[in-house]
């Protein structure tokens, strides 16, 4: 079942950023949107979510309604100085479910605490936001997205400031949540290491080279396609059951 579909969609703020796009986001998939910095990934994400009007083409909702979205923004865009507790931030994920005028109920608080528990930071619920580490803050934002009871979990560059080990832990967490909540996932990233073994589908995006290509991950994680995307030689190798991607010094073949 498809959640969102873009048909011959021309995306951009005033001028087209990418060639016309055909993209169907199906239930249960994990789509990684991959491209260098400033490639147009966020514009694609906004267009997919209906936040950026299309210049041309169509965005359709095959279910007849927008899917419920849990969104994890880039952590550094948020202000840590707000005098909020972790629980207050996670409760924000329930705002749409509760609706206007009503206050958060005991059930909402329980759901928010359960989301924190599931992420493994249940003990931080009453801690002030400013006292969190970067990794803990990231998890709080994921807990807020889960508290929204989403069908679609969208993560915008969640691992951009993480070391490889922390990145792996976070992606494993997202994979576990996907399976536990039967979610579809869209992950926007410029980090190649995040993709293998995580995404089922990959969209390659680059406005400079006017590249947009989407397909199953095993077809897209391919040296020639990645070399075209990054303008450099790329090697893909198997290390045990993992896939390693190395960007070389040379020009693409």
């Amino acid at each position, binding site marked *: 079942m498809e959640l969102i579909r873009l048909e011959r969609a021309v995306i951009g703020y005033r001028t087209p950023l990418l060639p016309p796009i055909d993209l169907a986001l199906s239930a249960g998939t994990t789509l990684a949107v991959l491209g260098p910095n400033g490639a147009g990934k966020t514009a694609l994400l906004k267009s997919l979510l209906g*936040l950026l009007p299309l210049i041309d083409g169509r965005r359709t909702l095959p279910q007849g309604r927008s899917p419920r979205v849990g969104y994890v*923004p880039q952590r550094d*865009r948020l202000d840590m*100085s707000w005098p909020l507790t972790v629980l207050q*931030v996670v409760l924000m994920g329930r705002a*749409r479910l509760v609706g206007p005028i009503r206050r958060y109920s005991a059930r909402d608080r329980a759901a928010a605490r359960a989301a924190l528990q599931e992420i493994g930071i249940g003990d931080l619920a009453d801690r*002030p936001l400013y006292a969190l580490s970067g990794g803990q803050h990231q998890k709080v934002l994921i807990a807020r997205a889960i508290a*929204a009871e989403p069908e679609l979990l969208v993560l915008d560059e969640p691992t951009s400031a993480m070391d490889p080990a922390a990145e792996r832990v976070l992606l494993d967490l997202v994979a576990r949540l996907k399976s536990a909540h039967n979610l579809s996932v869209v992950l926007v990233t410029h980090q190649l290491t995040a993709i293998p073994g995580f995404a089922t589908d990959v969209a390659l995006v680059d406005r400079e080279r006017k590249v947009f290509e989407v397909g199953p991950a095993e077809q897209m994680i391919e040296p020639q396609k990645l070399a075209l995307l990054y303008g450099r030689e790329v090697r893909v190798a198997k290390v045990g059951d993992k896939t390693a991607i190395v960007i070389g010094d040379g020009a693409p073949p």
Partner: protein
Amino acid sequence: MSGFADFWAGRDLWREPMIAGVLAGAILGYIGVFVVLKRMVFVSAALSEISGVGVAFAFWLSAVLGIDPHLHGATPLLLEPTWFSLLFACAAAALFSFQPGHRKLATETIVGLGYIISSALVLTILNSPRIAQEAHAIGDILFGNAVTVPRQQIYALLAAALAAVIAHVLFFKELLFVSYDRETAVVQGVGVFRYELLLNLVTAIVISVATRAVGALPVFAFSVIPAAAALMLSERMRSTIVLSVLFGVISAAVGYYASWVEQLPTGATMVVVASLFLLPGLVKILRRSSV
């Protein structure tokens, strides 16, 4: 007579301005928490100036139409400066809700332009020979001479404060969400534009009415200083709001009293008293940074 006895004996003179100051301190202390956290301090300053343009414009229009505001009952209700003040401030608030930024002209630049142009407009109108006789009234608005406040303005301030409280009680969770993380609120389908508009309109109405009552300087100060002082001391939203309201109320009351006893300008004295509340927070920050 001692200072306080003298002050108490004159209570019939200061009752209204004191009530107006305390009311303005309380409601601006509350709204200021959002103003400071949303980093829209200059929106508050610009709204205050823009509402001043509304008042000046009302006087100018009356002069052009040949209406003498000194004649009892001469000014038609529609030319009442309060309406123009509200209209101008609300129009600006609505404009700011559209986030009229451009890659070469950030929203804060546009807010700054609003402030500068409004200040210039008020001064221009103030010095217009057509309305020279009204200059003192516009001057009060600009420089915050909160010595005499008609009862009508207290009612207006009370109504504006009530509207702000009702809006915040009903939609607190939405206002908090869109203020803290606009982007996520947009993605999750919370009506961001309407809540930002509500927040800005409520802020504009309070600022506009309070500016008429106590002056631009104390209004700007009450919408920034108490909240900043409270934020430095508190780590919880609820206690921040309580402290900020308390600081606003005390600043207005003590400031008015000090200005009476020492014969100082009222609005400016209120601001000086409010500034004292920044000291505990600054000491706290200095202590932390020296550890």
